[in-house]
């Protein structure tokens, strides 16, 4: 019973992180139909930035978000303008190939810059609290809280603000959005900026809990695809739900399948992904657009 409860709590905490990790990926896919295969690499960059700020200035990873968010917004904005906007209306294959190329280039660039050695961010509060027989790791609980806050903010932004509305309009019907005066390229660039910034923020928050190395990205990209397929494109409640499902599944696999530990996370999510794509290709919850729209 205790083990079950512990697994549930750990799964939920992990799911919270997954939900915030997937937001950027899911919104980019939902709004412009681009599957960003370099998603994990931006997460990796965020983690390295948090590590660098921690090493140089002793800055707390959560405090360093103040710097990381605007900086990575700029990176995402520029990337979209320079690269992705040129091909966003061309066959899917091209954006897929370009983001794949970007991901390989970034991962190997960071390998050259920082070696392949795993780095750690050892924060002082890296302990855990016991509550009713269940262990709550402090950092992961903070991440969970921050994830909820970020999701609520993003949800409000997309639903209420003028800019958020134009982003949703661009996602739903690009032509109509153009007709009513939405500058699609600018909206795309802002969307990419927000999404890359959020992804890097997720990486920064992750940094105290996991070793940071240049090739940490692809598993996250893959998990992001799975969660998005579960929760629907660009849907924030969907991201939360999908993240929870994946987090709990992963923890249950590592708890109850003997002798494996947490090493089968990707394999688990891969099986989930293929099952979803085959059984319910439109995703479990639907979203900004059907998941197989424009599959070219």
């Amino acid at each position: 019973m205790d083990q079950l409860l512990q697994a549930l709590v750990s799964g939920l905490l992990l799911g919270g992180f997954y939900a915030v990790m997937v937001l950027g990926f899911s919104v980019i896919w939902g709004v412009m139909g681009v599957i960003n295969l370099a998603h994990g690499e931006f997460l990796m960059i965020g983690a390295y930035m948090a590590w660098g700020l921690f090493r140089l200035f002793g800055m707390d990873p959560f405090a360093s978000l103040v710097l990381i968010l605007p900086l990575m917004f700029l990176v995402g904005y520029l990337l979209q303008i320079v690269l992705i906007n040129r091909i966003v209306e061309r066959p899917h294959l091209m954006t897929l190939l370009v983001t794949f190329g970007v991901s390989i280039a970034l991962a190997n660039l960071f390998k050259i810059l920082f070696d392949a050695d795993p780095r750690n961010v050892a924060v002082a509060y890296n302990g855990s609290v016991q509550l009713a027989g269940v262990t709550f790791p402090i950092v992961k609980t903070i991440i969970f809280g921050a994830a909820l806050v970020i999701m609520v903010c993003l949800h409000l932004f997309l639903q209420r603000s003028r800019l958020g509305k134009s982003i949703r309009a661009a996602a739903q019907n690009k032509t109509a959005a153009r007709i009513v005066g939405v500058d699609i390229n600018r909206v795309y660039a802002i969307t990419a900026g927000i999404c890359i910034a959020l992804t890097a923020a997720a990486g920064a928050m992750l940094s105290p809990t996991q070793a940071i190395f240049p090739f940490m990205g692809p598993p996250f990209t893959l998990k992001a695809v799975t969660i998005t397929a579960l929760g629907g494109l660009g849907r924030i409640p969907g991201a939360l739900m999908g993240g929870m499902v994946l987090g709990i599944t992963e923890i249950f696999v590592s708890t109850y399948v003997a002798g494996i530990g947490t090493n089968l996370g990707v394999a688990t999510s891969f099986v989930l992904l293929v099952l979803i794509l085959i059984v319910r290709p439109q995703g479990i919850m639907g979203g900004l657009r059907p998941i197989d729209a424009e599959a070219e």
Partner: protein
Amino acid sequence: MGTGPPVKTSEEKAKRKLSLPFLAPVHSLLAGWVGLTLWLLLLLLLALYPYTGVSSVALFVGSQIFVLVTLASNWNLIGGMTGYVDFGHAVFFGIGAYIMGILVTGSPLLISPEWGFWQALPASGVAAALFALLIGLPTLRLKGPYFSIAMLGTLVAMREIARVLRPFTGGGVGLNLPPLLNRLGDYYLMLAVMGLVVSIIWWIQRSQFGQSLIAIREDEIGAEMRGINTTLHKIVAFMIAAFFTGIVGGFWAWQNTYIDPDVVFVEARTVEMVMMSMLGGLGTVWGPPLGAVVIYFLQDLLWGSLFGVHLVALGVLLVVIVLFMPEGILGTLGDRSSTSLGRLLSRVGRSK
């Protein structure tokens, strides 16, 4: 969705592109018997090459190039001709390498007498082909980007699994194979494999089987309506591509004498295959081999000395090629529609 001014962009681009249509007849000649004759002639010359008294380094370089050509051609069969862009093709390379490693070292759980290289090599290919059957049955049902991602997932998942299955694979520590150097043998073996693979691709492209694959790429539902058993065709193409990739993987493990999950199950190897096919001309017979040779010498000349830089350059180059030369060398120099991405682009430009 997806309307708006894409018409303008792609047509403008088509006009701006350097295109030499008078080369088109050369292409159709090359696709026919002339191409095969020239290819066999080239193979003959390459077979005589070691008799000119070259160093073992040159032989090693030769076998490396043959490996790349084989990989690129294999990838092109599924990614270019069938139109299923496989981002995890390195998984078959890895499986071939591991089967070779396990059989040759007689890894703990297996019965001892260890297998020799010549028994293990076909086993590598067969294992990879069987794995392709197993993984292809679910994943080849997925369309477009979902197939690509599912295969990328297969690759990353297999890397994890290879790390977990310590008794078989040595986990993260990897396996050491007996170092038996035979540069001349390697050269001829890979020359033979490369010759076979490219000839098979040439034959496939002319056969009804190959035309069916192209029909699947262009319009899968239409192909099915015409009575093509699309599932069977896709699976067979996938298995052929996987078989030879597995053979190359097994050979590579033997030549490298050391394998671990991070060395054989790497995305970079897939990028290499994609890259070389794209550069030469996706979906053509001679494009991928050409791309492979170009990439090899580019790597050697430009960034061979700087360790690790070539992978960054590879990623950047992929981006550049997709942006500026999506039809590859052959498509740019001749008939744009001879490469699959060229066709896709012109079709999207027309239909919207």
